[in-house]
């Protein structure tokens, strides 16, 4: 754990960040759309090749394993662990001035042996208490600036 001042912890994030760019669901390409359709139904779905059945993230038009062009969106458990975590203390976007410190966290989903990793935020925990390996699960929260965009963010599992 690396924190600047171990005696002063930063307030937990309680929701995603606001005032920053979001996906424009009208412009997102077809092969990515299933992710955001899933979050709108409060499901975490990952792109899965219908030919070889491997999942991949980031979404791609073609399967990087077998090169098939057909895919489906498969619901995953939403559970994972923290793979790497950062605490942003100095903002680089004007809207974030009042929202630092916040965490940017890579979450490794439990499926497919660590192949699937998402960038997200961990809510409801002081940023300094986030640790690599921490078990988390997904929750779905509408973006402040566009309620049609439902963002998958994560919270720590109970009983840690």
């Amino acid at each position, binding site marked *: 754990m690396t924190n600047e001042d171990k005696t002063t912890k930063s307030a937990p994030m309680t929701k995603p*960040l606001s005032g920053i*760019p*979001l*996906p*424009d669901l009208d412009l997102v390409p077809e092969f990515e759309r299933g992710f955001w359709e899933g979050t709108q139904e409060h499901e975490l779905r990952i792109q899965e090749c219908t030919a070889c059945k491997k999942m991949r993230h*980031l979404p791609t038009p073609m399967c990087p394993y077998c090169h098939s062009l057909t895919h489906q969106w498969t619901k995953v458990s939403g559970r994972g662990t923290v793979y*790497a975590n950062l605490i942003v203390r100095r903002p680089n976007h004007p809207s974030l001035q009042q929202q630092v*410190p916040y965490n940017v966290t890579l979450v490794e989903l439990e499926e497919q042996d660590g192949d699937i990793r998402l960038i997200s*935020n961990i809510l409801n925990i002081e940023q300094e208490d986030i640790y690599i390996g921490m078990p988390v699960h997904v929750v779905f929260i509408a973006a402040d600036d566009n309620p049609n965009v439902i963002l998958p963010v994560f919270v720590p599992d109970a009983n840690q």
Partner: protein
Amino acid sequence: MTGNNSDSGLSYMRDKAAIAGIGETEFSFDSGRTEWQLACEAIKAACDDAGISPHEIDGLFRQDAENNDENLIVSGLGLQNIRHWESITYGGGGANATIAHAAAAIAVGYCDVAVCWRAANDRSGVIRRGQSRGSEGIPGGAQSFSTPFGSMAAAHSFGGMFTRRYMHEYGATSRHFGWVAVTLRHHASRNPRSLRPDPITIDDHQNSPMVTDPLHLLDFCQVNDGAVAIILTSAERAKDLRRGNAPLALVEAGAQASGTNTNGAVYRPDLSEVESYNSARDLYSRSGLAASDMDAFLPYDHFTPFVLMGLEAFGFVPRGEAKDFVEGGENIRFDGTLPVNTHGGNHSEAYIQGMTHPQEAARLIWGESTSQPPNKEINRVLVGSSAAQLSGGLIIRKG
């Protein structure tokens, strides 16, 4: 494995081209002039250093962080007859590649006088590196999965994430990175071109504000204005030019590499393993050389932790042991066992997306570095890659 191996790959280009001249503008936080002018000035300075007219340039090698396209260089310098040009992607990741490709082009006869350059008003310009603007919708792609979560800069992406995993895997701490910062500042303090010439202590580093935990302010390289240019010719031609009586700075080998799943920067299988492992493999196999053949190491220091990762990836120390090697700074200082970034690097001299490192390699070969190692002869310099994305490395040797 040392010595010439004429059966190794790329023997057609090995030692065929030399850095014949280098030039740069002043480095500043506001150049007060266009990037076009900066480019012309740096290229003219490099030509003067080589002892040629810019009109002799017939090959252009551009890394794509550059806003000036080839037309501006042709018209700005009155170039007469460009016979080869290339734009290489990934910004700093393409820096070393411009030198390697220029050497290869010269070796096969695509051009005779090559210029590699980079001109940037990164500090005074409208779009500042690391700063985000606007709240427009993202039309998909990697950004749509990163920006909404506040990952909006290199430090939030590969910079911070590789560092975090590296610390986790090998036990390196912020303080270890601090020794790199201290040493780079020390080198910069001896370099009149530097924008950060004031020495710092390890406590200064540790007390500097935390920008993106685990990266302190003094772990970041600079954002500045300036331009750099490097002229290459054949080795034979270089002997007839202004620096012809000095040792030649020959391009011995180049390699570009990536690894897998590079889109979006943080989805590679193992974020504690930088791209440089791939560059190193090919650089060494192509040249038949090893880390023990290198007398100085110029790694891409966008963030100090990547100096540690580079020391390991290029085989100077075993994995996980760079933290001990840099402790105290003595080993990597210009008068130590393995001089690192004797110019002060991106971190303390100036950040021109990796183009100052091949310059410094040439200076070390010529004996002209502002921190020329006093205790060892510099026969070979390894210029390391930008580490976390498609990028590459370079070996420059004394001819």
